[in-house]
């Protein structure tokens, strides 16, 4: 039992703070928001140089072999910007999926390119419904149908596409974005990022594009998704902490009725509630991170628990932050509005807050599970 950050973890945090303060201030953010692309290759290269794009991959695959604790430390700093680039999609969700499911050859071919910044990916999964049909042809799979709301697809060179095959197994295909038979219709998102609806019309996928050969992809998808949920919860904690900090600062300097509004007890207590929500949210992200190396049940409990808890904190904090700022809080004049939108989007991605609360409820409604302490047995 040790929750002290290691020196390496502190270094990651400090270098993230420094890089983002130097290179990704509000002006940069606003310039990107006003651009069509909504991301910066330049920033992405910077991430690559700092080793962040290969952070959680094994060293033999061009990565740095870091774990979930390092990822959430980095992600929290990303959320404080908030970073628009497709880090969760490319590195965590698709990267982990390749690492977990891919053959050695596939890992070798893809992870290194992600780590070096040459490749971005998006996961066309559509957890809510899967209206895809797959035909197994002589020398290729033929995919038809639609994948809706594929986040960060517009900046991806490769899509990972999930499909249920006729034998009931789930396959994940690695498909070039510009492959014949695929059409992308792209949209802006509420929080200033991009997504696409992908139309597949008899898109031909060679068998070797299937990750992991014949392995069923479900377990790997679930595990990679738990990583992505945890990372995106950490991102949300970053946005929450920035909002709390900026709201406290604002309340200390904004004067009404001859004194800073921070002197009003009602606001003081609300600010405390916001700060506590931040601390609690961060704590549950840490629990989710430290549960990722457990079994599937532990991972799900950690990830769904964090998504539910951080989702609740996200809503309370963004509403309270806006209210405390008054009218200016409802505009895009400050960064505040963008944090709020980030948090609204956070709640909806990877299934909404109340769905995760429902999953967590199924686990915790077993009295034994409810009673279990967080401190775990020593490994043998």
């Amino acid at each position, binding site marked *: 039992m040790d929750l002290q950050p290691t020196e390496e973890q502190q270094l990651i945090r400090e270098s993230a703070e420094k890089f983002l303060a130097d290179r990704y201030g509000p002006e940069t953010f606003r310039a990107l928001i006003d651009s069509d692309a909504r991301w910066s290759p330049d920033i992405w290269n910077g991430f690559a140089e700092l080793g962040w794009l290969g952070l959680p991959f094994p060293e033999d695959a061009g990565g740095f072999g870091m774990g979930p604790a390092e990822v959430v430390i980095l992600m929290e700093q990303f959320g404080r910007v908030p970073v628009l680039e497709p880090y969760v999609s490319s590195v965590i969700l698709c990267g982990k999926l390749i690492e977990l499911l891919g053959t050695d050859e596939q890992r070798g071919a893809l992870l290194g390119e992600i780590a070096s910044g040459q490749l971005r990916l998006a996961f066309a999964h559509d957890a809510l419904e899967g209206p895809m049909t797959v035909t197994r042809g002589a020398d290729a799979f033929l995919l038809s149908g639609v994948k809706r709301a594929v986040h960060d697809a517009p900046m991806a060179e490769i899509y990972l596409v999930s499909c249920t095959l006729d034998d009931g197994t789930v396959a994940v295909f690695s498909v070039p974005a510009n492959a014949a038979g695929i059409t992308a219709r792209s949209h802006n*998102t509420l929080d200033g990022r991009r997504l696409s609806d992908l139309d597949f019309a008899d898109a031909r996928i060679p068998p070797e594009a299937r990750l992991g050969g014949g392995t069923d992809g479900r377990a790997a998808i679930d595990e990679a998704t738990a990583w992505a949920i945890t990372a995106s919860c950490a991102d949300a904690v970053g946005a929450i902490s920035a909002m709390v900090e900026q709201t406290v600062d604002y309340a200390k300097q904004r004067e009404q009725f001859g004194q800073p509004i921070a002197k009003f007890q009602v606001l003081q207590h609300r600010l405390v509630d916001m700060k506590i929500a931040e601390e609690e949210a961060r704590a549950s992200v840490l629990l989710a991170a430290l549960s990722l190396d457990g079994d599937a049940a532990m991972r799900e409990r950690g990830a769904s628990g964090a998504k539910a808890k951080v989702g609740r904190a996200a809503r309370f904090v963004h509403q309270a932050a806006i209210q405390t700022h008054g009218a200016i809080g409802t505009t895009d004049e400050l960064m505040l509005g963008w944090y709020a939108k980030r948090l609204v989007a956070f709640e909806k991605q990877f299934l909404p807050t109340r769905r995760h609360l429902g999953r967590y409820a199924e686990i915790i409604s077993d009295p034994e599970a409810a009673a279990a302490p967080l401190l775990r047995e020593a490994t043998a």
Partner: protein
Amino acid sequence: MDLRLSKEDHAFRDEVRAFLAEHMTDGLRRAMELNTCFINEPPVALAFHKALHAKGWAAPNWPEEFGGTGWSPVQRYIYESESARVGAPTFNDQGIKHIGPILMKYGTKEHQDAYLPRILSGEDVWCQGYSEPGAGSDLASLKTRAVDEGDHYLVTGQKIWTTHAHFANRIYVLVRTNTEGRKQEGISFLIMDMDLPGIIVRPIDGSGGDHEFNEVFFEDVRAPKSGLVGEENQGWEIAKYLLEYERGGNPQAARVRARLSSVARLIKRYADDDPSLTLRLAEVGTDIDAMEMLELTLLSDLQSGKNPGAVSSLLKLRWSAMQQQLAELALDIAGEDALRWESGRPLYESLQLPPDTEEMLGIGPRYLNYRGYSILGGTSEIQTSILAKQLLGL
């Protein structure tokens, strides 16, 4: 005690419904349903307003002598409720609900003759210059100066949160004409044309993507003295009269009920299987029932000639909360589809999509904009502190 309408009022309601059925065109209904702001943009409402004007209904709250309807409180309530229920637009509320009544009470005969008919006809659109960057909840600390220069005031300063300044051709402004004594006592009420040299309007982008508010800068504006309403330094009294009007003057029940109904429709369409959403809808439903009863009690008091007491802050506080809860509930119903963002405004002009896809695109902006309900027109904190005094003597 009874909730039944009299035969006469019932017949009046039928007349209002018939008028609305005729003039709420499909296009107008769509434009209103895709409106994500607190109020609708004036151009949407112009044709509807002209029809109202032709029927003599342009100003439900004005006495007949000024071209109003002279309706009883109940008739006015019925009219406002039926309009809100079908989502009818309002045209230039600042003119009809705010500066109109002010001019009737504090304006000269010249003011009344010059401005009131043009409000009724729709020729003039007004905006309100009250808040300043440093004077929000603490309005009386405003700093915009008006210096007497003989035949005019020289006005310098800045207003903010000026709704629809970019549509308006007239503005009424609170200005400081005296810097000594209590800050409330040096404020005057001034009206100006928006095309005066030195008046500059800068848009403020709402985080919901709408342009509803503006900053208005006054750079050495020479404002004719004829624009002074009431006495010099009487502005605070006039503004308070208006704030009273703003905060409780209009029935909100039907407006919030219309949103309740539209969220009920959303649940039916997209989330019929999630009882937690329906229960949240029901909680707001019971809130609306209770507040509508309080509103009707107020109406009943008015009708009996009683002083309705201090309920305007209470109504503002609670209706705001319900509007926000419904917008939040809609956001939760919508799921990931609410993340798609259309930045063009107004939405009814930007979109060419099937109706239920269109409807999704208003949900995010509306949620974001509606956070302002508990801020604008007096924050919920301020309303609560007012109620601590008024209701509890604290």
